[in-house]
């Protein structure tokens, strides 16, 4: 049995398989060329779009029902939230730096940038907690009005997503420290990065719709 056939059998669905056997089978692509894990993350993020789509549309439908409680523009502190949004955006940049570091093989820089990303993300979450506390003091509890329920639910779901991302980033750092995240596994960083960038983009949408549009 030739080594070529062995390759093919051993790697169903990789681009190697597609290219070595493509000639034999009339050049029909039988995989996307993405690894299973990366493709799965893309597909999962597609599903997440509908999750946030549903939450955002619910918010849009309900936001005018402020009842006796404060309305959005009574309480929002746009400069503060703009700063924390900027912090989250910067974390996307450090994420890119982390990926490029591990792809170069610079594992130490990779860890540094992963930690920086997690730190910026934590700053954002801390800002959100601070913001929620401030709103609560100003009379906007979770059950105050239809608007308050919708607002806290939408932004809270996003905050949970950021937190999950931070946990994944820190897990990568721990694995790297234990020597289990070498250059050859840079795709793990790339996939976590996909998730992280997605969460950032979602925040840009939420920030625009919830805070900026009157």
């Amino acid at each position, binding site marked *: *049995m030739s080594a070529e056939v062995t390759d093919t059998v051993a790697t169903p669905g990789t681009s190697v398989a597609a290219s070595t056997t493509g000639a034999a089978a*009339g050049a029909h692509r*039988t*995989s*996307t060329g993405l*690894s299973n894990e990366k493709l*799965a993350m893309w597909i999962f993020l597609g599903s997440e779009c509908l999750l946030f789509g549903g939450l955002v549309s619910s918010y849009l439908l309900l936001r005018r029902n402020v009842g006796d409680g404060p309305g959005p523009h009574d309480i929002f502190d746009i400069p503060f939230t703009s700063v924390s949004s900027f912090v989250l955006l910067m974390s996307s940049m450090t994420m890119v730096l982390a990926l490029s570091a591990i792809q170069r093989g610079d594992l130490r820089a990779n860890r540094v940038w992963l930690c920086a990303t997690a730190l910026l993300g934590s700053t954002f979450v801390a800002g959100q907690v601070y913001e929620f506390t401030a709103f609560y003091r100003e009379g906007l509890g979770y*059950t105050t009005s239809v608007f308050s329920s919708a607002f806290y639910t939408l932004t809270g779901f996003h905050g949970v997503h950021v937190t999950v991302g931070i946990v994944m980033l820190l897990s990568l750092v721990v694995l790297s420290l234990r020597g*289990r995240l070498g250059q050859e596994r840079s795709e*793990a960083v790339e996939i976590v990065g996909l998730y992280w960038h997605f969460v950032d983009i979602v925040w840009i949408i939420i920030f625009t719709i919830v805070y900026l549009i009157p």
Partner: protein
Amino acid sequence: MAISDQRMLELPAATNGQRPLGVFRRPTATTGWRSWFTTIDHKKIGILYGATALVFFALGGLEGLIIRAQLATPDNTLVDADTYNRIFTMHGTTMIFLVVMPLMAAFANYFLPLMIGARDVAFPRLNGFSYWVFLAGGLFLYSSFLLGGAPDGAWTGYPPNAGLTFSPGHGIDFWILGLQITGIASLVSSINLIVTVLNMRAPGMSLMRMPVFVWMQLVTQFLLLFAIPVITVALFLLMFDRFFDANFFNVEMGADPLLWQHLFWIFGHPEVYILILPAMGIVSEILPVFSRKPLFGYPFIVFSGIAIGFMGWGVWAHHMFVSGIGPVAVAAFALSTMFIAVPTGVKVLNWLATMWKGKIELRVPMLFAIAFVAQFVIGGLSGVTHSISPHNTQQHDTYYIVAHFHYVLFGGAMFGVFGGFYYWWPKVFGRHLNEGWGKLHFWTMVIGFNLTFGPMHILGLQGMPRRIYTYAEGMGWDFWNLAATVGAFLLGASFLVFVWNIVASRNNPPAGADPWDARTIEWSVPSPPPPYNFAVEPTVTHLDDFWHQKYTENEFGHLVRRDTGEEVHSLDEHGAPVADEAHPSADGVDEHDIHLPSPSYWPLVTAVALPLIAYGLIYTYWLVGLGALLVLVALYGWATEPPVDPEADHADHGPEPHEPAAEHDPAREPVAVGVEEDEE
């Protein structure tokens, strides 16, 4: 080897020689009852899905029989109104989420990899996880019967009726959390199956050479992928209302209950196609085989399936014509509902054309497939009538609706499923189901089904509302209600015939690899298939590739058999494939050289944690913490455990002759099935 620079993601677990983390000894058994708890073989998981769903089918059927017994006569007092509400809620929820969806998942799990020439799904452990989560969600939902009352808000769970004010017990809580849990199962499995189909097809298996069943499942999985998050949002909002006093559906505070209806039906209408498209796929496999003709208009069937997948998102408000959504919306959704009948009609015509002038063999699978087409047409036609909004207003919430969706989901989906059972039983278990008992099953089921749900059209037109627990004498509903009840018990009997058929068929002679002279490549492997499916990855050159391996045209254009059946899928006396023309390299393949992913405890452990969290949300929050902790531990255990146990099965080969990272790398999640180079 070239592969090593084409790295797929390895979970950073077992780098060269490092011990994987984890508290468990890795399970090793692949046979025996224990193996079913740790299996990650897509075929075993498919069987688990199917068997579990059949048990839930019996439960949901019993609930249906209670409904029919209560409605058999006017002013009946078999169950009271409250119990009746719980029973019909659980009947609908069970049949949709715990019967038809997992039955379709059973077929998808078992046959998608076999039909695309793969050795397993893309993420075998996630696959096991999906099953256990589905089971956990189902058991959690059913535990509500023992814990203070099942849900009573109908399968649609409309607030404010399902809110705390009108449904103060825990029933709706169980319903919300149970559906959230099964939703996780569906979402994970949809991602898994989409990646499998997109990435793991055998060489030459281009998209337009995939069997129609694979296509329909692919469309279904995309629908699940996008529909599940929408119902998740709706369920979360209702849950926050009930658990944390949020105001999403609090009308006094100015909330709009229509929000639930919109979210629910944006999920709910695609859900209809999630239930029916796989059955269409099954029937599209059965009809050509028993008509001895290729499927008529394969691309039309495929593209109309895709069209249904897109259009299914634009018709949801036809469930809300009486909810006050305004004339413009009603007109728009009435039109889109009429249009979506077109691709469905295309399929029906293609099925009929497939049978046209075919040499039809009326075996049991074919009988079910034909009944599917006939009954689905009735259900489809009564469905299109709902697009006529005045008629819809008249029929809303009457038994006409009940008749319609049972013709689609039972007369359609379940008949397709039973056709699939009879068709693929010899492949899965190596033995046919008995033809005689099968025919008895079929005829009792057809008669029982039509006797149960046919009269409901009349009852609906006479104005009998659905979801009422009894009715007065003299409404003119007595006769047809009694007829429907008789039919329902006949249906129940037909299921018993099916169960008996399974028992009676257990000692049938082996069916062989290709008992139906079928067309698709799952029939080219032994029955039941070996754990690794294909000894050598098949190379596909045609649509219906297996057929083309068997038959060719001679110079006069007549169909002639290429080889005898034995030569196409020749087996030695142990049932293992031996070399032949179609599988030139089958010789020398030692199954011990094919490394499949190892069994694992983590999917089961992770799944068990979810109902813990759910019980905690209802009863006591410390259980939530415990469950969350268990999930976290299990996920870390899972992530650090290599998909293929480095200690399993490798010892006999001695030192590896090549770089271990290439194909021995244990951390490759997608089926590290290296046929080793020993045989070079």
